[in-house]
C-alpha cells in the first residue's frame, strides 16, 4: 500500500511539476504566453525595442545572455504537451492497480481537466488545443495509420459486409433517428425558456450526424484493454473506421444546406452519389499511394535508412490528398496502409520494419494520449451553454438508437452471415459504440454565425463523449467478464496452425469448386493467384519476398528461434516455447527411410579432422558468448534479430560446409545407406560419442548446431542464404580459420549496428523481413 501511495504521490508530484513548468512558460514570460492572435501588438513593441536598442547601441554592453521566449514558444509548448502526455502514460504504468480499474482514456481526460483547470486558475487563456486544424492534420493521422498498417486484413475482409452494414446503414440510421427525434423533442417545448424550439431541423440533423459516428480513437483505447475476441474487435473497430465516409458526407451536406434551409430529393440523390465518391475515392487515393509506396520500396535496398520515411510520407500524402478533395482521409489512410504493407515488408530490411513499427506505435500512442488530454483541457476551456433537456435527450437518444440500430441490423445481417452474431455479441457491439474526439473537432469546426447553438452543441457532444468514455468504457470490462464473452487467445501462432490455415483455405476453395458455387474462397483464391502472378512481380524486388506464405512463416519462425537461441546464450533449447526435451531424433523414423538421400549418411571421420571441427565449433561458441556479454554490458535491449540470425545462419552454414567438405574429402565413392539411423550416424561423427552427447553443462552449442541442420532439406534451405552472396562466404572462411582480424572487424561492425544503422552495417542483413 505504501508503495502504491508513494507511486501515486510521485505521479502527482510529477503532474504538479509539469503544470508548473507549463504555467511558468505562460506566466513568467507574459510576452510569450500571449498566444498567437495578439502577435501584432507584440510585434510593434519589439520594433520599438529594436529601435530603442539601435538608439542606445553605444551605451549597452553586448548581452551575454538574452531571453527571447516568443521565438520558441510554439514548438516549446508543443514539446511540453508531448512531454506531459508521455509522462502521464509513464505514470499510469507505474500504478497498475489504478489502470486495471479505470481505462487509460478516462484518466487522461481527468488529467486534461486538471491541467485545463490549472491554466484557468493562473488566469491564462487556454490555447485552442483541439481545434480542427491540429487535430485532423497532426493528431489523427498517426493513429489511423497505425490502425490501417496493422489492420488484421483477414478478419476484416471476412466480415467486410457486416462492417459496412454497421458503418453505413448504422450511422445513417443513428444520424436520422437522433436528429429527427431531437428536433421533435425541441419542438414540443415551446414554453422552454432556452429557446430550444428555435432550433431548425437541419442543424439538428447536422448535430446528430456528428454525434452518431463511433470514434476509432476511443474504440481503440478501450478495446485494446479488454482483449475481446477478434471478431467483435474487428466489427466495432472496422465500423468506427469506415463510418468516416458517411460522417464526412452527412456533415458537408447538412452544413451546406442548413444555410439554405431546405433539402430537395435531388440533394438526397447527390448526397448518395457524393457518399460513393467520398468513400471509393478515398480508398482509391489510398490504394494509389500504397502501390506507389510499395513500388518505391522496391528500389531502396541501397538507402535503407530512409525506408521508413517513405511509408510515413506516402501515407500522409494519401491522407492530405484525400482531405484536399474532401474525400474520406481516414479511408485513404487505411487503404494505403493495408495495400502497401505486404509488399513493403517484403522489400525493406528488418531494421526498417522494426523502425516503422516502433514509430507508428510511438506516434499513435502519443497522439492518443494528447487527444484525450486535450479533450479534458477543451472541456474546461470551452464556452459552455448547458441545457438539461437537450443534453439528456441527446445522451438517451444516442444510447437508444445505437441499441435499436445494432439489433435491427444484426437481424438482417444474421440472415446472410454464416457465423451468426449472438445476443452477447450484439450487446458488446452496441455497448462498444464509443464517441470521441473526432465528433468534438467536427463540432468545433462549426461556425458561430451559421449555428447560434454551437456552444450548446459542443457541450452536448462533450457530455456524450464523457458519458461513453467514462460510463461505458469503465463498465465494459466487467461486463465482458460477466457475460463470459470469448476473449482473444494470446498464444502466438504455431506452425501447425499455419499449415492448417493454408490447408483449410485450399480445401474450402476446392470444395466450393466441386459444389460449383463460386463463393468467397473461390474469389479469394483467384485474387491471391493474380497477386502472386503479376502484382508481386512488379512490386517486390527480391525473389525471396515472393515465396509462399507458409515458407515465409517458417523462415520467420526459424529466425525467432535463432534469436531465442542467441538470447539464451547459445544454450541447448528445442525449437518450441515449452521447456521440453523432445528433439529431432525423437520424431525421426528409426528405420532408414528409403527416401533419404544418400548424402545424409556421414562417413567416419579421421581423428585429427574431428578434433579440428570441435575446436572450430568451440571457438565459435566463445565468440558468440563474447558478443552476448557485450550486449549485456551496455545493457542494450538487444535487438539481436538480425545479428543473431545471421550469426545463427553463419554457424549453420559452417556446419553444412564442413559436412560437405568432409564428405568430399573422405569418400569419393559415397556409401550406400547405412543400416542404422541418421542420428546414430551423426553421433558417429565423433569416434568417441561422449563428446557429442548433448550434455547440457558441457559444450552445449554443438548440440544445437547439430540438431538444427539435421534434415537434409534444412541444409538446402540454408543454401539459399548462401546464395545471398559469395562475400559472406569469404567472411565465413575467415571465421573458420579464426583470423583475429575477421573477428575484430565483426565486432566493430556490431557496435556500429547498435549505435547507428549505417549503410555499411546493413550490408550484413540483406534478408528482408518476412511478414
Amino acid at each position, binding site marked *: 500500500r505504501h508503495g502504491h501511495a508513494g507511486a501515486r504521490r510521485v505521479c502527482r508530484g510529477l503532474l504538479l511539476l509539469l503544470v508548473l513548468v507549463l504555467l511558468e512558460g505562460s506566466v513568467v514570460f507574459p510576452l510569450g504566453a500571449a498566444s498567437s492572435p495578439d502577435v501584432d501588438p507584440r510585434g510593434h513593441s519589439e520594433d520599438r525595442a529594436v529601435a530603442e536598442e539601435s538608439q542606445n547601441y553605444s551605451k549597452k554592453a553586448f548581452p551575454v545572455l538574452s531571453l527571447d521566449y516568443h521565438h520558441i514558444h510554439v514548438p516549446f509548448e508543443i514539446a511540453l504537451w508531448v512531454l506531459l502526455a508521455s509522462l502521464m502514460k509513464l505514470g499510469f504504468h507505474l500504478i497498475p492497480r489504478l489502470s486495471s480499474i479505470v481505462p487509460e482514456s478516462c484518466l487522461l481526460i481527468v488529467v486534461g481537466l486538471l491541467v485545463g483547470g490549472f491554466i484557468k486558475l493562473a488566469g491564462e487563456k487556454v490555447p485552442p488545443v483541439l481545434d480542427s486544424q491540429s487535430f485532423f492534420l497532426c493528431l489523427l493521422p498517426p493513429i489511423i495509420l497505425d490502425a490501417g498498417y496493422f489492420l488484421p486484413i483477414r478478419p476484416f475482409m471476412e466480415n467486410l459486409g457486416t462492417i459496412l452494414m454497421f458503418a453505413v446503414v448504422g450511422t445513417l440510421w443513428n444520424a436520422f433517428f437522433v436528429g429527427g427525434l431531437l428536433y421533435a423533442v425541441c419542438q414540443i417545448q415551446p414554453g422552454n425558456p432556452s429557446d430550444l424550439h428555435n432550433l431548425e431541423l437541419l442543424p439538428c440533423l447536422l448535430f446528430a450526424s456528428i454525434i452518431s459516428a463511433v470514434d476509432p480513437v476511443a474504440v481503440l483505447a478501450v478495446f485494446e484493454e479488454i482483449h475481446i475476441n477478434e471478431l467483435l474487435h474487428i466489427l466495432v473497430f472496422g465500423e468506427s473506421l469506415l463510418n468516416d465516409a458517411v460522417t464526412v458526407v452527412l456533415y458537408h451536406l447538412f452544413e451546406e444546406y442548413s444555410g439554405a434551409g431546405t433539402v430537395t430529393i435531388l440533394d438526397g440523390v447527390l448526397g448518395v452519389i457524393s457518399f460513393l465518391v467520398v468513400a471509393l475515392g478515398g480508398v482509391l487515393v489510398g490504394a494509389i499511394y500504397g502501390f506507389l509506396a510499395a513500388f518505391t520500396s522496391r528500389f531502396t535496398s541501397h538507402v535503407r535508412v530512409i525506408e521508413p520515411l517513405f511509408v510515413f510520407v506516402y501515407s500522409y500524402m494519401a491522407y492530405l490528398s484525400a482531405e484536399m478533395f474532401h474525400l474520406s482521409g481516414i479511408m485513404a489512410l487505411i487503404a494505403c496502409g493495408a495495400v502497401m504493407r505486404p509488399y513493403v515488408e517484403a522489400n525493406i530490411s528488418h531494421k526498417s520494419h522494426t523502425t516503422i513499427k516502433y514509430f507508428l506505435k510511438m506516434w499513435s500512442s502519443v497522439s492518443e494520449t494528447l487527444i484525450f488530454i486535450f479533450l479534458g483541457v477543451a472541456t474546461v476551456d470551452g464556452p459552455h451553454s448547458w441545457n438539461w433537456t437537450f443534453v439528456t435527450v441527446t445522451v438517451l437518444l444516442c444510447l437508444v438508437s445505437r441499441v435499436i440500430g445494432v439489433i435491427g441490423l444484426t437481424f438482417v445481417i444474421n440472415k446472410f452471415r454464416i457465423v451468426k452474431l449472438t445476443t452477447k455479441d450484439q450487446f458488446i457491439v452496441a455497448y462498444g459504440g464509443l464517441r470521441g474526439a473526432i465528433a468534438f473537432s467536427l463540432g468545433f469546426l462549426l461556425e458561430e454565425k451559421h449555428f447560434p447553438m454551437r456552444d450548446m452543441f459542443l457541450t452536448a457532444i462533450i457530455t456524450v463523449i464523457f458519458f461513453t468514455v467514462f460510463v461505458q468504457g469503465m463498465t465494459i470490462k466487467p461486463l465482458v467478464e460477466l457475460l463470459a464473452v470469448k476473449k482473444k*487467445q494470446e498464444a502466438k501462432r504455431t506452425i*501447425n496452425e499455419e499449415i492448417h490455415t493454408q490447408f483449410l483455405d485450399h480445401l474450402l476453395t476446392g470444395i466450393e469448386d466441386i459444389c460449383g458455387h463460386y463463393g468467397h474462397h473461390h474469389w479469394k483464391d483467384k485474387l491471391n493467384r493474380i497477386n502472386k502472378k503479376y502484382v508481386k512481380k512488379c512490386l517486390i524486388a527480391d525473389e525471396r519476398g515472393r515465396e509462399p506464405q507458409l515458407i515465409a512463416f517458417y523462415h520467420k519462425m526459424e529466425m525467432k528461434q535463432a534469436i531465442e537461441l542467441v538470447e539464451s546464450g547459445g544454450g541447448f533449447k528445442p525449437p518450441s516455447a515449452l521447456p521440453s526435451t*523432445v528433439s529431432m531424433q525423437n520424431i525421426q523414423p528409426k528405420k532408414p527411410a528409403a527416401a533419404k538421400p544418400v548424402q545424409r549418411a556421414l562417413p567416419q571421420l579421421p581423428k585429427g579432422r574431428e578434433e579440428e571441427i570441435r575446436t572450430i565449433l568451440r571457438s565459435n561458441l566463445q565468440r558468440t558468448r563474447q558478443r552476448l556479454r557485450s550486449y549485456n554490458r551496455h545493457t542494450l535491449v538487444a535487438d539481436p534479430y538480425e545479428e543473431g540470425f545471421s550469426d545463427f545462419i553463419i554457424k549453420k552454414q559452417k556446419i553444412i560446409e564442413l559436412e560437405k567438405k568432409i564428405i568430399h574429402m573422405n569418400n569419393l565413392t559415397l556409401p550406400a545407406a547405412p543400416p542404422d539411423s541418421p542420428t546414430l550416424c551423426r553421433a558417429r561423427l565423433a569416434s568417441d560419442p561422449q563428446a557429442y552427447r548433448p550434455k547440457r553443462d558441457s559444450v552445449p552449442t554443438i548440440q544445437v548446431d547439430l540438431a538444427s541442420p539435421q534434415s537434409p532439406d534444412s541444409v538446402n534451405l540454408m543454401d539459399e542464404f548462401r546464395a545471398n552472396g559469395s562475400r559472406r562466404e569469404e567472411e565465413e572462411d575467415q571465421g573458420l580459420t579464426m583470423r583475429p582480424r575477421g573477428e575484430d572487424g565483426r565486432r566493430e561492425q556490431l557496435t556500429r549496428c547498435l549505435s547507428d544503422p549505417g549503410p555499411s552495417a546493413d550490408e550484413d542483413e540483406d534478408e528482408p523481413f518476412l511478414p
Partner: protein
Amino acid sequence: MLRPRALRTGCVDLGPRGCQRVPCAWCARVGDRASRTGRAGGAAAAAAAAMGASQTRPEHRHQDLADRTGFSLEQIKNLHKRFQQLSGDEDTISKENLESIPTLANNPIRKQIIGAFFDKRNQHRGEAGSCDQIGFEQFLMVMSHFRPPTLKMTAEEKEAMRREKLRFLFNMHDTDNDGTITLVEYRKVVEELLSKSGSIGQEAAEAIADAAMLEVASTNVPTMGPDDFYEGITFEHFEQILKGLEMESRMHIRFLDVDTTTMRCGKSTS
C-alpha cells in the same frame, strides 16, 4: 431450423468405426429413380417435386437425407443438380469426374480433396478404405462436413461438430488409416500444400513438416528421453494442436440456397 441430430453426433464421438447402420435406401433405389428422373436432366429434383403423387419418392429421400446430413431440402436439391452435372447424369461419380473440374486444376491439394470424397471413413459407416465410385448420398455425406454451425446449437453439439470436422482433416492426412499421422504422412501433406510453388516449396516442405512434427511432439509429450520415439500425431494430439483454430466456425462453405428466405421459412415449419 436445423434440428439437432443425435444419431449423427453420437456417431462422431465414436470415431470412424462408429455406429449408425442406417440402411442405404438411396443407393438401393437410386437406379430406378434415376431411370425415371434422369431424363429430366439438371432440373430433375425440382421437377419431381412438382410432378405429383408418383414422383414423391425422391422428395421423401431428400427429406431423409436432410434429416441425416443436416442440409436443407433446397441445398440438397442444388447439390443434386451439381452432382448430376458432374457425373454426366450418371448415378455415381468417379474420380475422373471430379478431376475434370477446370477450376480445381490449380488447387495444390486437389488429389487429397478428391481422395476424401472416395474415402469410406468419411461416410460414418465404420468402414475403411476407398471406393472408386460414390453415389449422391456419399457425396452429400462428405459435403456435410462443411456445414456451418448454427445459432441454436448447444455447446456439446458445437464440440461434436468441431470433432467431426477435425476428424475429416485428420483422415485426409492419415492416409494409411492407422490412427496416427506419421512424419512421412505429414511431410507428404506439406509437400502437396507447397506443390504449386515450385522448387523452393519442395525444398522447404520437409523442413517445415519436421518443425511442425517437432512442435506437436514437444507440445504433447514434453519430456522424452533421447531414445524415445514419437510415432505420430494421434487424433487427440491433433485436436490439441489445432485448438486455437476454431475449426467449428472456420471450416465451412456457403451452400447455395436458392430461394433463401422463403425456403427457410418453409423449412422451419416443416
